[in-house]
Every structure is written in structure tokens, then in C-alpha cells.
């Protein structure tokens, strides 16, 4: 089957591609962009920190290796190296952390053609294991989200960015509050 035929077919119903362990997250979102556009954006890992709220930096070390740095709630950070284990253009990317990494994680993101002209269904599945009780610390400064909620927020941010070219925000707007009274929205 040629690539173009595949891209014109809807790949539904969704299935969950990973056998998952204790800490796992599965989420999907529909984005009004073609699978190849969303794939291209994601595959350029330097784009990821733009919409992944918890990720401070991703260094691309080689075509398949990258170094990830995330922020934790208490101001600490965690880092690990990941390797791409599967890369199908316009369809999916899978990765896992290297052995002995501080954060043990693997995941796969799929880019499925949505029905009619609705764009792409992005399916993200991840396992994560953070030793030493750091898991509960895996969240952002602003909101205190758990990794599962954070994944949903991150996917919404990806969608907003690809559809509108910006992230919705009220950070920095006027209010009758002093800075120290800023509301802390816990999702």
C-alpha cells in the first residue's frame, strides 16, 4: 500500500499500542492539521519544549538520541537520555529512556488520519517510573498537576499552537491583585 493511500484512510477505531505498567497515561486529541504536518512538528524535538509545560529543554544529540530536562514541583529538575526506537514518517514515533536513566520512561505517539476533514488524531501513550519518590514531584511550578493531567494539558497546548499559532494565556494580564496574591489554579 502506498504512503498516500494510507494517509487518506482513517485509522479508527483507536487502539492502545503499549502494554502498560503501573504509571501510565493514554490520551488522544484531534488537531485540524494533516498527519504529516503534525508528525513533522513533533519529530523536530526542539519544538517539544514549546508546548510541553514540564519540559525545560531537549537537546538533540543525534538523529535518534536526545537529552531531556524537566522541572519538578519543588524547583528540582530531572534529566535523562532517550533513544528513538521506532520512527515511521507521518505515522508514529516511539522512544525509551536509556538504561540507568534517572527517569525510566517509554512511549509512543501516533498520528492517525481523522474522519472527513477533521485533521489528525494524535494518540500519546507513556509509561514513566521515577525512582526515589520523585514522581509526585513531577509537575510544574504554576499548577501542581500530576503527570497524567499534565499530558492532557500538553496535548491541548499542542493543538492550540498548531491550529492558532499561539498558546492561550492570561499570564501577565491586569488585575486588582498584587503579584503575591496571584491565583494558583490547581487543576
Amino acid at each position, binding site marked *: 500500500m502506498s504512503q498516500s493511500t494510507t494517509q487518506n484512510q482513517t485509522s479508527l477505531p483507536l487502539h492502545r499500542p503499549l502494554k502498560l505498567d503501573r504509571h501510565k497515561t493514554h490520551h488522544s486529541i484531534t488537531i485540524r492539521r494533516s498527519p504529516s504536518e503534525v508528525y513533522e512538528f513533533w519529530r523536530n524535538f526542539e519544538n517539544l519544549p514549546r508546548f510541553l509545560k514540564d519540559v525545560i529543554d531537549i537537546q538533540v544529540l543525534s538523529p535518534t538520541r536526545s537529552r531531556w530536562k524537566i522541572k519538578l514541583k519543588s524547583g528540582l529538575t530531572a534529566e535523562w537520555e532517550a533513544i528513538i526506537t521506532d520512527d515511521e514518517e507521518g505515522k508514529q514515533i516511539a522512544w525509551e529512556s536509556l538504561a540507568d536513566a534517572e527517569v525510566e520512561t517509554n512511549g509512543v505517539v501516533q498520528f492517525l488520519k481523522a474522519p472527513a476533514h477533521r485533521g489528525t488524531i494524535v494518540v500519546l501513550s507513556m509509561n514513566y517510573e521515577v525512582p526515589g519518590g520523585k514522581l509526585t514531584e513531577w509537575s510544574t511550578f504554576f499548577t501542581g498537576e500530576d503527570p497524567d493531567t499534565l499530558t492532557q494539558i500538553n496535548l491541548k497546548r499542542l493543538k492550540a499552537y498548531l491550529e492558532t499559532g499561539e498558546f492561550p494565556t*492570561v499570564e501577565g494580564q491586569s*488585575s486588582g491583585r498584587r503579584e503575591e496574591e496571584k491565583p494558583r489554579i490547581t*487543576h
Partner: protein
Amino acid sequence: MKALCWEGKQKVSIQNVPDPKILNPHDAIVKVTTAAICGSDLHLYDGYIPTMKKGDILGHETMGEVMEVGPLVKKVKVGDRIVIPFDIGCGSCEHCINEEFSACDNTNPNAILADKLYGYSGSGIFGYSHLYGGYAGGQAEFIRVPLVDTNSLVIPKGIEDERVIFLSDIFPTGYMAAENCNIKPGDTVAIWGAGPVGQMAVRSAFLLGAERVIVIDHYEARLKMAEEAGAETINFDDSASILEELKFRTGGVGPDACIDAVGLEAHGHTLTANLDRIKAAAFLATDRPDVLRQTLQACKKCGTVSVPGVYGGVLDKIPFGAAFGKALTIKMGQTHTQKYMQPLLEKIIDGKIDPSFVITQRVKIEHVPEAYRLFSEQKEECIKVVIDLH
């Protein structure tokens, strides 16, 4: 700049706050020339809408002059006079493409909260709690408008603010409520609530071809304003049974469509209405839906119930059996304002309607807290307040 800030239940004040600035590339900063207080602002004032924070700037009926635009704004220009819709659309998601702007996927930064409460989040809304994005509102000297190319209607020169300010909310809201009634020749539309949205719904129902409009309220000044547009009225203080009265007046058939232009703070004398008040006061219920109950009960078989009135939470004792038993169609939701602004502006320009008829008070920003109190407590004399800013 001066801005009207929410301080707590039934407490608002004018504060000096920093001027807004561009935060995103599709933003504009607008010098507000006219704003208004909406009936739904009273739900915030009375503490019915959760996730308000002390210091939030209120206001979602706003117009003014564009002072500055972000680098990616394409259509709107500095100097344009614009009306700003209360709901914030992105213009590019599936819902916005379908002109369902208040269901926009991309403008609520706190969408995850509403997802958890409602299943899926609607759009962001100006000055309407952090559940709807926490956007600063327009009862202020300046406002930041995100995605301004989608969230604006440019007003031609020579049309006064007061004729077009209500394109931001209540005119489209009353119009969509009437449009949702699927009015056919000969139809009777019953409208609960002769407040600003009810008044717009009365006129919109006639514009859309209704034969009769019957308005239910208990403030004589408001009923009189509805009569001026040709509506018949029922003062529920004088009526033993609104349902019997409507049945009688419609020859035993019932209204073809019923509009709930009241929402979650209904007043009334029925047993259920009194129970609602007690439960809401004790935080045992979130909404007082007695009007919604009446519309479902009063509507004719296979008729339509249209709900522009705002509801927020979990409602008690809704006669769903009546709705099912009569095969009712129920339509509702926040208005897709952007869809209606241009066609309704044309109706204003063509002289088919002048929405400024509803204005009863004009105040300066310093007096807005007093106006909230008046609007909340003196519904007889105060129907619609506009704020004259620049």
C-alpha cells in the same frame, strides 16, 4: 487604569490596576469607550459562579478603539472602532469553522478544569471566572482582546456606541434564543424574564416572524417595555397559575416555543422555587431552576424550549418526564456571538431595530459599584446600565 474588580460576594470596587499589554501575537489593546453590566454579571456578583478570584476584572459587553495590535493581526487596524463579543473564539478549530464560537477548543487556558466539570470545555469568556479562562474583562479603561481578528466587529463611522454596544452579547443572545425556537408563521413564543435578554428576544421573535409573544415577569416597568414592542404580558404576582394562564391564552394548545431568559437565579412563588432558595442558601444546590421547570411544563407538544439563561451546575427536580412525554426539543448554550454580529449590525443600520431602547442608566466608571447594587436590588427602575468610559 481604572477597572471594576470583583472582591467577593456582592462586593465590587474600582481599583487602579496596570494597563493591559499585548501577551500573544494575535492580541489587540482596546481603549474602551462604552461597556455595560450584564444580567449574568449578577450571577458573579451574587457568588453563584465558582472559581472567581479577588481582584478579577469583570465585564463582557465592551466596545472601543483599537490602540495597538500584535504582530500577527491581519484584519483589525489601530484606530478601528470595534465591538468585542463576550465569548472568545480562535477562528480556526473545528467548532469555530462551524460558527460555534462559544464552543471554541483553543481559547480557555484552564480548559482542563471545565473538562472535568462538564466533560469538555467551552471557549474562554471575558471577565467570567477562571473556569472560563480568567480573562480580564471590559469594565475598565482598557482591555486586551486575544485573537482580535476573530473577536471583533468593526463599526462603520457615524454610528453611536449605544446603538451597537449590545452586539457584544445581549442582542445576539436574544436573537439566537429566538432563532433556536424555529419560529413558523402563526407561532406563539412565551418568554420568561423581561430583562435585557428577554427584551431582545421579544423583538427578535417578531423579526423572525412570530405571530404572538407572551412575556412573563413581575416588574411592571419591564413588562411595559415588552408591551411597547407588541408583546402580551403576564405578571406572575397576579397570576394563580402561569401554566393555566398560558394554556388559556393559547386556546388550550400551549406556546409553540418557550424561552427561559432568566437562568439560574429564578424568583417565584411556587413550592419548588422556595425550596430552591433554601437549598441554594445552604449550598445544597447550585442553581435555582424554577423557570426552566415551568418552560418544560408549559410548552406545547413537540414544541421547543430555548434556554439563553445561564446555568452552572447540577439541577434539582427537572420535569424531564414532561419533556420526554411531549417530545420537546431543547436548545441552549452560550451564544455564538461572532456568527450574529455582522447580520445584526445590518439590521441596526437598516433601522429594523435600535437596541439602545433597553438602556435605563448611564454611569461613569467611578459609579459602577453603585450601579451593580442598583441593578441587583432595584430591577423595577434599573433594566440596563451602560458605562461611559472615554
